[in-house]
C-alpha cells in the first residue's frame, strides 16, 4: 500500500526539476480534445466563472431592456408577451445561471488552493457538472431565442405554469433547466464538502480554515439540503404537464400551494446560497486590506452556520398573503427577523476589523465597503417585509423588487466584483487597472442606488411588479425615468469591468505570487498557479500561514512525482492519512453530460425518452468509472 521503493517521489527532486516533473504529470493534455478532457479544477473553475459572467451579461441586457420599456408610460418597446419572457429569463438567468454558479465557480477555483491541495475532490464529477451547467444554460437561452423561452416568472407558480394556462413548451423548458442547474450545483456541493473535509493541508485544523472556505462549506450544505426540494417540485410540474399527474390540480386532490411550499423551501435558502459566499469573499478581502485578521473569527463562523440553519425556517414569509394560520405567520415573522442577528454580528466583526486595522483603500476594499452600505439598507427593508402587516401592503409591488435587489446585488454582486479585483492577479497573473477599478466602483455604487432606491418609493405608492407598462396618470413616470437612468449607469460600470479585464489580460502589471501581501495559501504559489498547484504540500501551523511563516513555509515531502496523488487528512485535526490517486483527464464526463442532456431534453417531449435515453447515460457512466489501466488505477 505504501510507496514502492523505486517510485519517483518529490523528496528526491529539487526546485526546477520537481516543478517540471509535476507540471508534466498534472497538466491538461494539449489540443481541443485535451481541453475537453480537462479535470484540473483551475481550468474548470475558469470556464465556470467565464460562463457565469457571460450569463450575467445576457441577464443584464434583459434588465436594460426592461428598464427601457419602463422608462416612460405606455411605451411599446416590448410587447406584453415579450416582456413576460424577458423578466422570466432575467430572473431565471440571474438566479440559476449566474448567482449560484458563479459562487460555486469561485469555490471550484479557489477552495483547493486555499486548503493547500492539488485538485478538487472528484475532478471528473467537477468537469461533468460544468458541462451540465453549460448545456442547461444554452438550452434555456436557445429556447428563448426561438421564442419558446419561459414566461411564467423565475418562480413558475402554478396554476400559471400548468398545461391549462401555458400550453406551449415554455414552462417545460424552465422546469428542465432547473434540473440541469441542480445536477451541476449538487455535484459541486459534494465536491466542496469532501475537499474541505478530507483534502486540507496537514495542520489546517477546523479553527485554521480560511473564512471564505468556511463560507463555501456552509453554502455547499445549503445546496445539498435545499436543492432536492426544487427537484421534487420541478419534476412534479413536468410530470403534471407531460403525463397528466395531478400534484397541483385542485380538482383532483392536488394543491397549488404545494408548489409554493416546495419552491420557497428551496428559494429562500437560495438567497443565502448566494449571500454566504459573498460574506466569505468580504472576510478574505477585508483581512488583507485591513492588514489584520478578521476580528471574531469564531463569531463569524458561528454566524455563518446560524445563518445557514435559520435560512431553512423562513420560506413561508414569501407566502404571507396566501392565507396562512396566524400562528404560522407569527412563527415565520419571528424567524425571518431573527436571521438579521447573525448577519448583523458579521457586519460588526467586519467593521471592528476595519476600525482596528490599517486599511488600504484599494478597489476590492471599496467594493466591500459598498457591500456593507447596500446590504445594511437591504437588510432593513428585509426586516420590514418580514412583518406580516407591511408585507401584506407591499407584496407584489416594486418595494419588494427594490428590497431583493439591495440584498442580492449588495450581498453578492458587490463582494463578487471585489473578489474579481482581488483574485484576478492570482488567476491571470496580472493586476487589474486600479484607476479603472475606482471608476468601476463609483459608477456601480451610484448607478445601483439611483436605479433601485426609487423602486422603494414606487412600491409604496402602488406600482405593482411584473407589469409591462403603466399609464401616465399613475404618476410613476419620473421615478421610473430616474431608475432607468441609474440602471444604464450601473450597466456601464460592468462594461468598464469587462474593459478592465480585457485590457489587463494583455497590458496589466505582472502580479507576482502575492501582490496584496495576503495571508492565505492560494498566495503561496505562483500566479497563475501551475497545474499541480503546489510543488510541495504546505503544512499549516497558524490561521494566517503566510503572515505567520513569512520567512519559510513548512511543507511535506514524500508524494509521488510520477503520477497524480493528493494527500488526505483527518476531519478535525487534518492529520495526514492517505496518499490517494487523483483521476486522470477523461472525455467521459463530457460524453456523460451530452447523454444526460439528450435524456433531459427528450423527456420534455416524450416520456419514452426515459427508456431510450437511459442506456447511453449508463454506457457513458461505466466508461467514466472503468479503470484505465494506469498505474494509480491498478495499485
Amino acid at each position: 500500500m505504501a510507496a514502492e521503493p523505486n517510485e519517483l517521489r518529490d523528496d528526491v527532486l529539487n526546485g526546477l526539476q520537481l516543478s517540471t516533473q509535476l507540471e508534466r504529470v498534472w497538466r491538461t493534455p494539449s489540443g481541443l480534445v485535451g481541453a475537453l478532457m480537462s479535470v484540473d479544477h483551475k481550468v474548470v473553475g475558469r470556464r465556470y466563472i467565464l460562463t457565469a459572467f457571460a450569463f450575467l451579461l445576457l441577464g443584464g441586457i434583459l434588465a436594460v431592456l426592461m428598464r427601457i420599456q419602463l422608462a416612460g408610460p405606455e411605451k411599446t418597446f416590448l410587447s406584453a408577451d415579450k416582456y413576460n419572457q424577458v423578466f422570466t429569463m432575467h430572473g431565471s438567468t440571474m438566479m440559476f445561471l449566474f448567482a449560484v454558479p458563479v459562487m460555486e465557480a469561485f469555490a471550484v477555483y479557489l477552495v483547493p488552493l486555499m486548503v493547500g491541495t492539488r485538485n478538487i475532490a472528484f475532478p471528473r464529477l467537477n468537469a461533468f457538472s460544468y458541462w451540465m451547467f453549460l448545456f442547461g444554460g444554452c438550452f434555456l437561452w436557445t429556447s428563448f431565442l426561438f421564442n419558446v423561452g419561459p414566461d411564467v416568472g423565475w418562480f413558475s407558480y402554478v396554476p400559471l405554469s400548468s398545461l391549462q394556462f401555458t400550453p406551449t413548451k415554455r414552462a417545460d423548458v424552465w422546469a428542465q433547466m432547473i434540473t440541469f442547474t441542480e445536477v451541476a450545483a449538487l455535484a459541486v456541493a459534494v465536491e466542496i464538502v469532501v475537499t474541505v473535509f478530507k483534502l486540507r493541508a496537514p495542520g489546517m485544523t477546523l479553527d485554521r480554515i480560511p473564512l471564505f472556505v468556511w463560507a463555501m462549506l456552509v453554502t455547499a450544505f445549503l445546496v445539498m439540503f435545499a436543492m432536492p426540494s426544487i427537484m421534487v417540485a420541478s419534476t412534479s410540474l413536468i410530470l403534471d404537464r407531460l403525463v397528466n399527474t395531478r400534484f397541483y390540480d385542485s380538482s383532483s386532490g392536488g394543491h397549488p400551494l404545494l408548489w409554493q411550499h416546495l419552491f420557497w423551501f428551496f428559494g429562500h435558502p437560495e438567497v443565502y446560497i448566494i449571500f454566504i459566499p459573498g460574506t466569505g469573499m468580504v472576510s478574505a478581502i477585508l483581512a488583507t486590506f485591513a492588514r489584520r485578521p478578521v476580528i471574531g473569527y469564531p463569531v463569524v463562523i458561528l454566524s455563518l452556520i446560524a445563518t445557514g440553519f435559520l435560512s431553512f425556517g423562513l420560506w413561508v414569509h414569501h407566502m404571507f398573503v396566501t392565507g396562512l394560520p396566524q400562528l404560522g405567520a407569527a412563527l415565520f415573522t419571528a424567524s425571518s427577523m431573527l436571521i438579521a442577528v447573525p448577519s448583523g454580528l458579521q457586519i460588526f466583526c467586519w467593521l471592528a476589523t476595519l476600525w482596528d486595522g490599517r486599511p488600504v483603500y484599494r478597489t476590492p476594499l471599496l467594493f466591500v465597503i459598498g457591500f456593507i452600505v447596500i446590504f445594511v439598507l437591504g437588510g432593513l427593508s428585509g426586516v420590514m417585509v418580514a412583518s406580516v402587516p407591511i408585507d401584506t401592503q407591499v407584496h407584489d409591488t416594486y418595494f419588494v423588487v427594490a428590497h431583493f435587489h439591495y440584498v442580492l446585488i449588495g450581498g453578492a454582486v458587490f463582494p463578487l466584483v471585489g473578489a474579481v479585483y482581488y483574485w484576478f492577479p492570482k488567476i491571470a497573473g496580472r493586476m487589474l487597472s486600479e484607476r479603472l477599478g475606482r471608476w468601476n466602483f463609483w459608477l456601480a455604487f451610484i448607478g445601483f442606488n439611483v436605479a433601485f432606491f426609487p423602486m422603494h418609493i414606487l412600491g409604496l405608492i402602488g406600482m405593482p411588479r411584473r407589469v409591462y407598462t403603466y399609464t401616465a396618470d399613475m404618476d410613476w413616470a419620473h421615478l421610473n425615468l430616474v431608475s432607468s437612468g441609474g440602471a444604464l449607469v450601473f450597466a456601464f460600470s460592468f462594461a468598464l469591468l469587462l474593459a478592465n479585464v480585457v485590457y489587463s489580460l494583455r497590458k496589466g502589471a505582472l502580479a507576482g505570487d502575492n501582490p496584496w501581501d495576503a495571508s492565505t495559501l492560494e498566495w503561496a504559489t505562483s500566479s497563475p498557479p501551475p497545474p499541480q498547484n503546489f510543488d510541495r504540500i504546505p503544512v499549516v501551523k497558524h490561521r494566517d500561514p503566510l503572515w505567520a511563516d513569512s520567512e519559510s513555509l513548512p511543507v511535506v515531502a514524500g508524494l509521488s512525482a510520477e503520477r497524480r496523488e493528493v494527500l488526505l487528512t483527518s476531519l478535525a485535526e487534518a492529520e495526514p492519512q492517505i496518499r490517494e490517486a487523483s483521476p486522470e483527464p477523461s472525455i467521459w464526463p463530457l460524453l456523460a453530460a451530452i447523454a444526460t442532456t439528450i435524456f433531459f431534453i427528450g423527456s420534455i417531449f416524450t416520456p419514452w425518452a426515459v427508456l431510450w435515453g437511459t442506456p447511453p447515460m449508463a454506457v457513458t457512466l461505466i466508461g467514466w468509472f472503468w479503470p484505465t489501466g494506469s498505474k494509480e488505477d491498478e495499485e
Partner: protein
Amino acid sequence: MRQTIVRDVSDLPTYGYGPRSGPWWGAMGFMALEGMGFAIAIGAYLYLYAVNPTWPIGASPPDLWPGTVETVIYLLSIIPNEFTNRAAHRQGLAKARIGLIVMALIGIALLVLRGFEFAHLNTRWDNSAYGSIVWLILGLHTTHLATDVGDTVVLAVLMFTRHAKPRRFSDVTDNVFYWNFVVLAWLPLYVLLDWVPRL
C-alpha cells in the same frame, strides 16, 4: 517563498476504508442529498394527505404483499451485505466476488418485485394527487435502487477482471455502505406508502 520540509508522508497508504477515504465521504454527500429528496417527497405526501378530506383519493390502499416481501428481503439483505463488507476488509477476493454476485441478484429480484408493487398500488399516476404522489415516491426509490444495482453489477464485473486490485476492496465497502442507506431509505417509505393509507 522558501520552503522547509517538516514531514515525510511516503509511508502513508495509498487507499483506505470508511471515513479515511475520499469516496466514502462522497457517498455520504450523495446520501445526504438523496435522503433530503426522500424527506421532501414524504413532506409532499403528508401535505396532500392533510389538505384532502379523504385519503387515499378514489382508490383502495396498495396491496400489502409486494411491499412487505420487499421489506423482508431488504432487511435480510443486510446479512450478505455485511458478509461482503467483511470479505472486502480482509481482501478476500473469492468471498467478495460471491458477496457482490449475491447482492446484485438481490437487487435484480427487488427490481422485479418493484414491478409488481407498481401493479398493486391500486391507482394510476393520473387518477388523483394520491396516485401521483405514490407513483412519484416509488419512482424515486426505484431510480435509487436501479442505480445502486447497476453500480453493484459493474463492481462485480470489475472484480472478475485484472482490475481487482487491493484498492478496489475499498470501493466494495463503499458499495456495501451505500446499500445500507438504500435499505434505510426504504423503511419509512414502506410505512408511508403501505400503512398510512390504512390509518
